[in-house]
């Protein structure tokens, strides 16, 4: 165990270096872009991917702490994450999840490397499916470099999932890796590496690591794809862990592979869950915290379905309009539609890191302001209320927290006058967190649905579609960000309330919250993409009205 944790720590030290390489531009532009591109593709091709990133953060491990206290790593990791509050890039991880959604948006600048990505994906999946876990066993060679690439990609700490992965996979010791790395860098097939490479006189781990990071830099594409593999692997692992606690989710996951609309998938998952829970009446708590059921209870599914309906209709209309046109007219329209599409690429997600953390009250203001810009006659009341009640609940809980500890017994003695005389259990917090996430997501979807209805049939018809698209994309970002913040607050509550709980009780709950937050974010992003045909129709209508005048 100790051995492992040391390896782990060393691996960690390599990370900042790689990050530095990224930052100072040692990794060239196209390469960086590809890196991002791969993340994107990776996450789309593998549903689990996004939550992996999340899980990594949840269990963010402090390297030094781990070194001292290897076996407590799990608990330490979880507490750690909740302690951090400042502006941080993990928002990105959440919100970046599946930014491509299902639409065929192509980011022009990224088209070139796609080819390679595809290949990587294909080869991985074939190998993996043939040999299952066994594939990973023979994979140790490049794991060190790939793992650091992974971490750099995530821009965050690494989870105990990786640690577990290591232990179970027989990761080579640092020495072994260093020799391999030297072979790699010294080898004639990589002249650029030996040029910049390992003339470093520093001995010990540090020297090894600098060598390795050079190798990382020089091997470029392979390393990055390896990083993807690592993430994917951790994802699978995490999913298994999660699935143990939530078989319903597993069903959802299975369903996701089919080609059907999102609402259908969700509905099926919900119905299955209902069937399951109906047979297990005793498992009342689990039901209370089931995201799918709650999402439906808040009418999220119905609104999603309604939105899909409007989207489909609009899409058909757009196609028929395009079919009726030809020549210059067609080209001109196509170009305008293309521009509109660009607003849907959610490119802004990438600027997140630079953005400063905003105050709590800003959300409502921001959403309201965005709504004004949208020029639809609906207001985000419901959304604001749902969010407010979630935050108020958290606040109440935080007020309650300090009173515990020594005074708990006293509190129970004179419990008659307080409405919440018993300490809020971690299960309660988890249930409320899932409920809030489901409610907020349902409200967001409802908002998108209403927006679609008003864009198509509202009074204010001559608002430029591109402007609306931009506002909506901004809104998507704000919503995802809010979900991320909320999930962090909830997990903070969970860790505070669950200090006395065992890790195997607490961790699944925390993972569950992050997982559903990540799912919520992708539902919202998918819903946002459904608005594209709606705005396309709106654009066409404005255009026709204009040309008729």
């Amino acid at each position, binding site marked *: 165990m100790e051995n492992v944790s040391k390896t782990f720590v060393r691996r960690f030290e390599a990370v900042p270096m790689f990050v530095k390489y990224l930052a100072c531009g040692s990794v060239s532009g196209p390469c960086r872009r590809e890196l991002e591109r791969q993340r994107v593709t990776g996450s789309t091709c593998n549903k689990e991917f996004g939550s992996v990133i999340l899980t990594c953060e949840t269990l963010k491990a402090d390297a030094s702490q781990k070194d001292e206290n290897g076996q407590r790593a799990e608990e330490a990791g979880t507490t750690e994450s909740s302690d951090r509050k400042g502006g941080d890039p993990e928002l990105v991880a959440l919100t970046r999840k599946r930014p491509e959604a299902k639409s065929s948006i192509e980011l022009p600048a990224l088209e070139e490397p796609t080819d390679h990505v595809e290949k990587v994906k294909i080869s991985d999946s074939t190998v993996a499916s043939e040999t*299952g*876990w066994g594939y990973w066993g023979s994979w140790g060679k490049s794991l060190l470099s790939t793992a650091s690439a992974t971490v750099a990609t995530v821009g965050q700490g690494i989870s105990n999932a990786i640690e*577990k992965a290591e*232990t*179970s*996979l027989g990761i080579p010791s640092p020495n072994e890796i260093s020799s391999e790395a030297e072979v790699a860098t010294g080898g004639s097939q990589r002249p650029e590496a030996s040029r910049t490479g390992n003339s470093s006189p520093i001995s010990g781990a540090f020297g090894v690591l600098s060598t390795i990071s050079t190798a990382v830099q020089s091997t470029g594409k392979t390393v990055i794809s390896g990083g993807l593999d690592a993430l994917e692997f951790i994802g*699978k*692992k995490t999913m*298994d*862990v999660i699935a143990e606690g939530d*078989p319903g989710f*597993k*069903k959802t996951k*299975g369903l996701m592979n089919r080609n059907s609309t999102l609402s259908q998938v969700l509905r099926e998952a919900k119905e*299955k869950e*209902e*069937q*399951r*829970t*109906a*047979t297990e*009446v005793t498992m009342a708590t689990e*039901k*209370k915290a089931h995201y799918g*059921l709650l999402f439906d*209870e808040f*009418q999220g599914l*119905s*609104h999603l379905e*309604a939105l899909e*309906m*409007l989207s489909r*209709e609009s899409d058909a209309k757009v196609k028929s309009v395009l079919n009726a046109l030809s020549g210059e007219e067609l080209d001109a329209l196509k170009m305008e539609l293309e521009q509109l599409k660009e607003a849907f690429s959610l490119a802004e997600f990438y600027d997140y890191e630079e953005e400063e953390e905003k105050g709590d009250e800003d959300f409502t203001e921001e959403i309201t302001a965005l709504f004004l810009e949208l020029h639809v*006659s*609906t207001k985000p009341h419901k959304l604001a209320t749902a969010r407010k009640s979630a935050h108020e609940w958290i606040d109440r809980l935080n007020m309650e927290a300090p009173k515990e500890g020594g005074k708990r017994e006293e509190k129970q003695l004179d419990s008659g006058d307080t409405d919440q005389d018993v300490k809020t259990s971690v299960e309660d917090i988890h249930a409320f967190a899932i409920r809030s996430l489901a409610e907020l997501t349902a409200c967001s979807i409802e908002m998108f*649905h*209403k927006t679609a*209805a*008003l864009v*198509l*049939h*509202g009074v204010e018809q001559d608002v430029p579609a591109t402007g609306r698209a931009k506002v909506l994309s901004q809104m998507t970002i704000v919503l995802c960000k809010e979900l991320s913040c909320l999930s962090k607050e909830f997990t903070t509550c969970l860790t505070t309330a669950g200090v006395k709980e065992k890790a195997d009780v607490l961790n699944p709950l925390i993972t569950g919250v992050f997982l559903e937050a990540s799912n919520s974010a992708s539902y919202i992003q998918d819903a946002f993409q459904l608005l594209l045909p709606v705005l396309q129709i709106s654009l066409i209508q404005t255009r026709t009205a204009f040309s008729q005048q």
Partner: protein
Amino acid sequence: MEAIWLYQFRLIVIGDSTVGKSCLIRRFTEGRFAQVSDPTVGVDFFSRLVEIEPGKRIKLQIWDTAGQERFRSITRAYYRNSVGGLLLFDITNRRSFQNVHEWLEETKVHVQPYQIVFVLVGHKCDLDTQRQVTRHEAEKLAAAYGMKYIETSARDAINVEKAFTDLTRDIYELVKRGEISIQEGWEGVKSGFVPNVVHSSEEVVKSDRRCLC
């Protein structure tokens, strides 16, 4: 949030704008009456469980449609998947009563090949002094189309419960007699879940990647 019900019915609520569709549904599902409410945009969704006989529950999914003409193309799409409907008019607004024909004609066109069991609802019966439609003529019209007639008030909570449960019971009877049946690709009626029926989960996606730890 009990998960156990026999059937799930989808009901649609239609009628001119401002007759009080949303208020009626809110009273039924949330038990509240909102003095002010914004006009419905497109469609809204509500649900509630109804116990028609002891231990026999039915889940109602209620589609609240916009009365405004400009949303008609949206709301039309919802007729097809409804098994029942409440057709509302405002007893203080003669025009809304006269439009009942039109509403029925429109649903007829769009509900094919299915059918909707309608109940005619004279709403705002608390405003009896401003009444412009007599109970007698409303009953006559309802009978002509084979509908039941009921007068309700969301504000004073008169007959709200009855309007929905009676309709639900009627549909339930039709389902029981086999005159309405669950069909693939039709969402109007869906069967619910009976407790203690063990569903073998097909989720056994053989986990060849089971964990090693």
